[in-house]
């Protein structure tokens, strides 16, 4: 008789066991090798941003604009903003990306970088107005205000789709380099990355 109802009892005990869970704990990266590897969500993390930045930079280093900068003996450049056009709150991650980008450009020695962080009022104006469609004339005006020869700007797009058991966001990071005098686009590239939650 026990055998007849044993399955029922086993099922109940199994369901109760499902509710058990381990306590969370804080760890350091050094203590947990590979802690940066798992994706925690569909947002962009440091690893994704580094990958996208490196992809854009590797194309930039091989582009004609580098020869032009070398010929001009380290012209001035500023990174204006990278617009978030995704469905994820990644603005602080994009700020981090800009800092990484500035670091790479400074260390390359090709250009002199004027950081926007030293001009908070202009930064606020750009943050507020850099919301609509991309306007090279406007970007060039900001470049002139900063007193730089070139500006870098960009945007991140996301194609966000959801299904019953999954969500996927396909990101594309576009970067542009503009000549402030002529508003001419001298360089443009796109790097892509996909993040998803799947079962």
């Amino acid at each position: 008789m026990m055998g007849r109802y044993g399955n029922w009892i086993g099922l109940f005990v199994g369901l109760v066991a499902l509710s058990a869970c381990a306590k969370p704990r804080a760890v350091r990266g050094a203590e947990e090798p590979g802690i940066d590897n798992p994706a925690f969500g569909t947002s962009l993390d440091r690893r994704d941003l580094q990958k996208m930045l490196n992809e854009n930079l590797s194309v930039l280093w091989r582009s004609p604009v580098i020869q032009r900068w070398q010929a001009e003996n380290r012209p001035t450049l500023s990174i204006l903003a990278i617009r978030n056009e995704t469905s994820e709150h990644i603005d602080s991650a994009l700020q981090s990306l800009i800092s990484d980008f500035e670091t790479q450009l400074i260390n390359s020695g090709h250009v002199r970088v004027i950081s926007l962080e030293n001009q908070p009022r202009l930064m606020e104006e750009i943050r507020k107005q850099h919301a609509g469609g991309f306007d090279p004339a406007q970007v060039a005006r900001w470049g002139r205000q900063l007193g730089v020869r070139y500006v870098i700007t960009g945007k991140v797009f996301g194609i966000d789709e959801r299904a019953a058991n999954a969500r996927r966001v396909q990101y594309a990071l576009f970067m542009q380099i503009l000549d402030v005098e002529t508003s001419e686009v001298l360089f443009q590239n796109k790097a892509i990355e996909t993040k998803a939650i799947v079962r």
Partner: protein
Amino acid sequence: MKPATLAFSLLLLGLAGCGGYSARLTRTRTALDAGAPRQALRELNRELKVKRAEDLPAPLKGEGVLLALERGTVLQQLGRYPLSSRDLEAADKGIEMLDFSRSGIHEVGRYLFSDDVGPYRAPAYEKLMINTLNMVNYLARGDLSGARVEARRFAVMQRFLRDHEEQGVALSGAGSHLAGFAFERSGQNDEALRFYREAAQYRETPSLRDAIERLSGKKQAQGPCAQTENCGELLVVFSLGRVPPKRARRMPIGLALTYASPFLSPYDYRRANRIAAQGLVTWVNFPELGMPRGSYESPWLALNGQALASEEALQVDVEARRAWERIRGPVIASALVRTISRALIGEASRQAAGGGWAGLLLSLGSQAALTARDTPDTRSWSTLPARIYLSRLRLPPGDYVLEGAARGLRGRRRVHLEAGGWALVSFSALR
């Protein structure tokens, strides 16, 4: 009696007496009813097991996700928009993960064990309201980029609901209107127009009609603020009332059978009838949506002392009622199936103990424990406002004083408008 059988019975008894989610929120709701949102915030912090609103348990799990939603709503009423955003965003991701983590075993548990077994599944209107309220948070801070992110998330959810549920549940007048506003103020008029048209499908209001005609070039603006760059735009959002919370209800099995018969298989129906006739089980536990919290009238708004008209953009409580009516029958049916299962478990326990007095006691004990463990699923976002009103107008640049009142609560805000600028002012009366 075998030790395994005894241990199982003790385990069931140990699980007995768990209160439902709604009962956990009683003190929070009482504080909001008393017009004391700070007290409500303290109660929610206590439930989340944190000392202050700046702290958020990580990762959010189980009912913690719902508690974050509740706290985000209360923080919005208190005007603490960044913290409200943080809570709503964490809960938004949490709700999504709960959706994905729900599995067949949870459904089995729901039919055998308790209504609230398994992760919470938020109804469509709650999912859309997360992004709607968070758009208010970002727009109140003047952050168009953040508001557009929420608008896009809102659109993704709408698309999903349209594809996987009914067309109607994807409509949300307030959410689409706010999304349209965020895109219009960002200079992305095509996107704005799409959202405005969607909002008008839910309810066409004068301000929506005006925005649609203006953006589609059918009408030129009139009056001193015809030129957008000469004036500023003010959007007032008034959230008031609360959706009715779910409450646990016990119903005689005979009456429950009447309600649930269309949703039961003939086999289950016969078994339930037989158990009812034997008098072994007399009551069925199930959740019920509470009564509406009175009638709702438009809030009183005044700009520099002059009365200001507002438009009803969304009836969240009506959406909640519709969503509940859709699932009510199956919920009662699952409660009945659990009742049958308990009777079977009781019989199993009696037989396993070899019958006699010990078997009878074990049977009664295990059934009593399972009945107590059968917690009706009263989980819902219970601090969600019942109604959302909008008021939208163009004004010459300058300083203004806005006053608002609803359901016995009053608020006052100062706002500065620049030429070509905009501002969103939010009032909440969650009682």
